[in-house]
């Protein structure tokens, strides 16, 4: 249900259609080849709907109109004022077109009218284009945003990149730990298991802030490196509030999600397999590579998929340690959800995230086979 709602919202344009039904109806009749500006009926319908429409609904529609082209908000606001005045004086104009153009000359600017074309249908792809740094030009072609307004594609790439890195690092760090867990005598493996799970039981927020303490320029790691003489005092590393910080913190936080599936798979691989391989003449490295490793693939893929999926939508940690550069797509979803209230864009970003995940899932299924997954 929530997913359906999100997908619906990402293309939904019905609110504005509820505010300007007649205007849009008349607008669709406008022959753009013949007339430079829309016919009188469009102006009349717009006048009436602005004059008698609900103020709150109009306000919300204005926000939507501004996504298509900036300038709509002020245009409608000034026009509305004039219309209200005229209605109060009971002076309905004879020629609505002239009235509106006098109220604001932008009504004679066809680009605004072209932009309206994006809104007249119940559904719109505009949020998806926005989520990919694209917009409409005045001829209603999809084009890239201005250079300086492009943020999403960059963030998407960064999100994918960091997720892939986090997955790889988790695998590299998690594999030996899981192997130890599965093969140490019970006393030691229980202790190790507690070390793996302990961070799990502490708040995510605490762990993230702990990383800030560790990584900041006057933090523990820089302190130790300077004390050891590896770094000079002015050469302290910038480890936090950038991508590095996000990468380090996320790897640590997501590591258990890699270790646990790996461990559960490794635990059931009989020890006799390595012995058998050596008995058959394989050196320990060959035995590991040919016999042990292939049997851990279900665990590696389960852990990898889990970590990747969690990483791609991660929010709190990159938000806190990510600074300016280390923010991921989750940041923008939250930003539009809470600050700009642009839920359409929010939903579109979310839907793309979902789509990316499904693509990876599909790829994974093609390459490894989903039946190979094993969580325990």
């Amino acid at each position, binding site marked *: 249900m929530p997913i359906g709602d999100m997908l619906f919202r990402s293309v939904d344009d019905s609110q504005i259609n509820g505010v300007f039904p007649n205007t849009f109806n008349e607008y669709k009749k406008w022959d753009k080849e013949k007339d430079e500006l829309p016919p009188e009926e469009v102006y009349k319908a717009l006048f009436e709907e602005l004059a008698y429409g609900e103020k709150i609904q109009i306000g919300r529609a204005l926000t939507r109109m501004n996504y298509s082209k900036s300038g709509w908000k002020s245009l409608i606001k000034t026009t509305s004022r004039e219309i209200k005045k005229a209605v109060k004086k009971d002076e309905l104009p004879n020629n609505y077109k002239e009235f509106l153009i006098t109220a604001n000359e932008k009504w004679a600017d066809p680009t605004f009218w072209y932009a309206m074309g994006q809104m007249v249908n119940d559904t719109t792809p505009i949020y998806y284009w926005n989520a990919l740094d694209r917009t409409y030009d005045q001829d209603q072609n999809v084009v890239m945003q201005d250079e300086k307004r492009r943020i999403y594609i960059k963030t998407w790439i960064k999100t994918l990149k960091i997720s892939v890195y986090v997955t790889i690092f988790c695998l590299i760090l998690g594999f030996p730990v899981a192997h130890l867990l599965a093969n140490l005598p019970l006393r030691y493996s229980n202790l190790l298991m507690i070390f793996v799970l302990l961070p799990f039981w502490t708040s995510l927020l605490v762990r993230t802030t702990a990383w800030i303490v560790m990584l900041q320029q006057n933090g523990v790691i820089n302190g130790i490196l300077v004390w050891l003489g590896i770094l000079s005092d002015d050469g302290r590393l910038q480890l936090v509030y950038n991508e590095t910080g996000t990468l380090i913190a996320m790897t640590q936080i997501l590591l258990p999600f890699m270790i646990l599936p790996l461990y559960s798979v490794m635990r059931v691989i*009989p020890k*006799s*397999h390595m*012995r*058998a*391989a*050596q*008995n*058959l*003449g*394989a*050196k*320990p490295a*060959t*035995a590991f590579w*040919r*016999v042990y490793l*292939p*049997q851990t*693939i279900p665990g590696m893929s389960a852990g990898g998929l889990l970590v990747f999926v969690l990483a791609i939508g991660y929010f709190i940690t990159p938000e806190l340690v990510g600074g300016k550069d280390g923010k991921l797509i989750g940041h923008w979803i939250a930003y539009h959800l809470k600050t700009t209230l642009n839920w359409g864009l929010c939903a579109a970003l979310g839907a793309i995230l979902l789509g990316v995940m499904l693509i990876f899932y599909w790829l994974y299924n093609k390459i490894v086979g989903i039946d190979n997954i094993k969580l325990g």
Partner: protein
Amino acid sequence: MTIWFRPVIQASLQIFNMNNPSQSFVKFEKIDKSYDGEVLVVKNLNLDIAKGEFVTMLGPSGSGKTTTLMMLAGFETPTNGEIFLDTKPISKIPPYEREIGMVFQNYALFPHMTVEENLSFPLEVRKIPKPETKEKVQRALDMVELGNFGTRFPAQLSGGQQQRVALARALVFEPRLVLMDEPLGALDKNLREQMQYEIKHIHDRIGITVVYVTHDQSEALTMSNRIAVFNDGVVQQLSTPDILYEKPENSFVAKFIGENNTLNGVVRDVNGDTCTVELDNGFGKVKALKVNVNDKGDKTQLSIRPERVTIDSTNPESNNFEGKIQELIYLGDHIRARLNVCGNDEFIVKVPNEGSFSHKEGDLLNLSWNPDDVRALDI
């Protein structure tokens, strides 16, 4: 119970490997093994195995037999002593260079490889050319009658088939020696018996040296040229199956191999190979072979096999007793009678079913036995 007779035939095969240490193919020399530095799981083991021999290590769990096998395979190192293979010490050789095949308890087939891949694995790591590998794999599969199963995965095979694949894999690279660690433990009874013969036949055919570990005495008796009976980290007796059964040297072996009736007593008189034992609680005197007792006054446990006790006839010299029938079980070819003899409530006698046995539970039976069939052992 017919399996008891097989070893007699096999005994004749033994002559060629009567222990000449210089000829022994595998030699354990004064092997001790301890995992924790305190308790020895294998104590002063000396064992010689001739080329082509089928030797079984038999014993209860925890008796050190698997540890011994693992030392031979190279997965455990002896605490003291040395193992020689083909006269060369092998303690320093890693398992992957020992050229010893092994069948593991749960087969240890690699689940992500097909049967063929499992079999070609040892050949691939030896860099044997592809066509030759293919041929050898096929031959090995044919040998265990699984020629058409090469492309299956182990999980698609039955327990018996997996067992055969494991056997084929242990043999395919032509090792100097094959070890088997309770390979039939996971199979059901019928299949187990069938596989015993199959392994035996393969051994006869290719003449490879086999060291086999089991806790199942009938398995050991069926297949082996010689059996080493392990208990408490020590080889109790190393012998051919018939000698183990008929001439056990101590009470553990007598009890562990086959069925055994025991009577406890004290040695009263020693006369060359024989001795006279006075049973505890004044049940009388028994003439027995002096096997594992030294002198007058020694406590001893007498061992008599159930089939060596005769009923309703008297022995001219001695060893005549009465037994009260506790339970009779009809087993077709013989009747198994549980008697109370000289205070022992679990005295078993096997009465051949000749149609003349008419006693009931509670009746008294006259029993007798030959002094040569009673062995005075340790207690």
